[in-house]
């Protein structure tokens, strides 16, 4: 009797162990870290020829229709697309950057994600041509998710991320303007855009990392490699050339003073980007001009002048990208009204995402074949007001 019980116990234990093992094995894919799959995709990525690259650009710009060469190229990279799609849906993404290398840290993924995004754009357009609009939209959402996976590391990551967002937003705008107004698809898209908005790239975070890394580079023992990495094409005037001489001759005290100055400026920059756009831009412009002016007379300001980004421009790029994203979200809501009622609303629905240049609602205007969302304030670098046109198929 006792032996039979022991036998049952052993059998049960074995079955439980087998179940646990199978569950753990089943959970091993996809991995927790999206970067693993991105790297895998990049290993298999087949670079397009210049001809195909040009064709994909023309396709994005609406100059040509999808052709066999582009389709063939996408087919060659079908597993790459598959890995990237899976990776984009994973929450965590750790690229394994060795930040102790300072500004010498390598980020090959930034260039690869751009090339992959071009491919996803082309695929979205081909799917749309075949009437597969939801799948096409999904390609665009993949680009948005990729953008979030590269956004926070450093300032350059943030800028690449903004460029990816623009690529995706342009495609979604085209799709919204051509696809049938299916309420289910639009509701699904709205939900996806909301979830993507939650993890929006943060300029503040990127600048904070940039500050930490650059600060560690402003040292006597690191200056030669830093200047080498910068190259000499930034030396465009006598003032910069003179500053460079001082940097090369700088002692420990020189670099200590420069570190302190740079840290203060970057703290001011990080605080400024949190302000509404017009104030932020004005403050950043002032900080930039002050640093450049002081670098001529105060040697402690030289490294800040050399290393500080054109923060007012970076801020504008971020605001422009986020505003375009908000315009898409607003357009989805407007199109949903049309899908429900059969006609475009006469006024802008309430509680829609805003124009971040002005901090106000978009100006909404119906046009003969759709509608326009217009910003209420300018891009202060380009002195231009942006507007987003959407067609609304009958």
């Amino acid at each position, binding site marked *: 009797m006792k032996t039979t019980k022991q036998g049952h116990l052993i059998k049960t234990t074995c079955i439980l162990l087998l179940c646990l093992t199978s569950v753990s094995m089943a959970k091993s894919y996809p991995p927790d870290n999206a970067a693993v799959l991105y790297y895998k995709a990049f290993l298999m990525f087949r670079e397009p020829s210049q001809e195909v690259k040009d064709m994909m650009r023309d396709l994005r710009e609406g100059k040509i229709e999808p052709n066999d060469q582009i389709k063939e190229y996408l087919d060659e990279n079908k597993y790459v697309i598959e890995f990237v799609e899976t990776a984009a849906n994973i929450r965590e993404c750790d690229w394994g950057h060795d930040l102790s290398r300072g500004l010498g*840290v390598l980020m090959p993924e930034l260039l690869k994600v751009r090339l992959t995004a071009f491919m996803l754009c082309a695929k979205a357009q081909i799917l749309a041509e075949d009437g597969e609009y939801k799948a096409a939209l999904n390609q665009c959402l993949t680009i948005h998710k990729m953008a979030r996976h590269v956004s926070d590391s450093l300032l350059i990551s943030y800028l690449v991320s903004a460029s990816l967002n623009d690529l995706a937003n342009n495609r979604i705008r085209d799709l919204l303007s051509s696809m049938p107004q299916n309420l289910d698809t639009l509701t699904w898209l709205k939900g996806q855009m909301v979830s993507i908005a939650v993890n929006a790239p943060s300029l503040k975070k990127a600048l904070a990392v940039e500050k930490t890394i650059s600060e560690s580079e402003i040292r006597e023992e690191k200056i030669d490699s830093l200047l080498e990495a910068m190259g000499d094409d930034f030396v465009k005037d006598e003032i910069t050339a003179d500053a460079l001489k001082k940097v090369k001759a700088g002692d420990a005290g020189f670099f200590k003073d420069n570190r302190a100055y740079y840290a203060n400026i970057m703290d001011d920059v990080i605080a400024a980007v949190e302000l509404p756009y017009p104030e932020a831009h004005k403050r950043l412009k002032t900080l930039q001009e002050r640093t450049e002016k002081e670098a001529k007379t105060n040697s402690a300001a030289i490294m800040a002048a050399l290393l500080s980004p054109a923060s007012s421009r970076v801020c504008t790029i971020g605001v422009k990208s986020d505003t375009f994203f908000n315009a898409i979200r607003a357009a989805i809501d407007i199109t949903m009204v049309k899908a429900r009622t059969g006609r475009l609303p006469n006024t802008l629905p309430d509680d829609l995402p805003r124009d971040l240049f002005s901090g106000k609602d978009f100006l909404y205007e119906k046009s003969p074949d759709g509608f326009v969302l217009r910003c209420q304030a300018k891009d202060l670098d380009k002195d231009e007001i942006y507007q987003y046109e959407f067609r609304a198929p009958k």
Partner: protein
Amino acid sequence: MNSVENTENFVRRGKAKITTDPRMDRHVLDDAFAAMDKSSTLKRSRSNWTWHRSSTIRLAVAAMIIVAIGLLAIQWDPQKEVPSEMGPVAKSPADSLSVMSLNMAYRRGGIEAMDALAETAFDLPKSRSAKVSLRELLTESNGV
């Protein structure tokens, strides 16, 4: 007085009386043959040594001529009359993927400049021309 005058005087004085004996003649003849055999062997071995020596010299001369032709070929390389210097060691393409390089590319020409950077950074080394000069070959194989 030399040996020729001695011999002439000796003959003139009529003192050339030589006593002959068949056994003595046989003995002298045998000695002569033995001496001749010995002399012949020595000569052959000397001849072998001389032959070896001369072929070594010939080989050395041939080698010198080849080396001389080689040196002349290098000197007279029509494409590169002036000895070419090795260019600076190429920067690794990976260096252009550092944050600072990407930053500088962006500062130069925005996101398009970064795309252009991707074309060079990920470009595999090109295969080199099959036409390689003797100097390049020597340089590469000897590392000088």
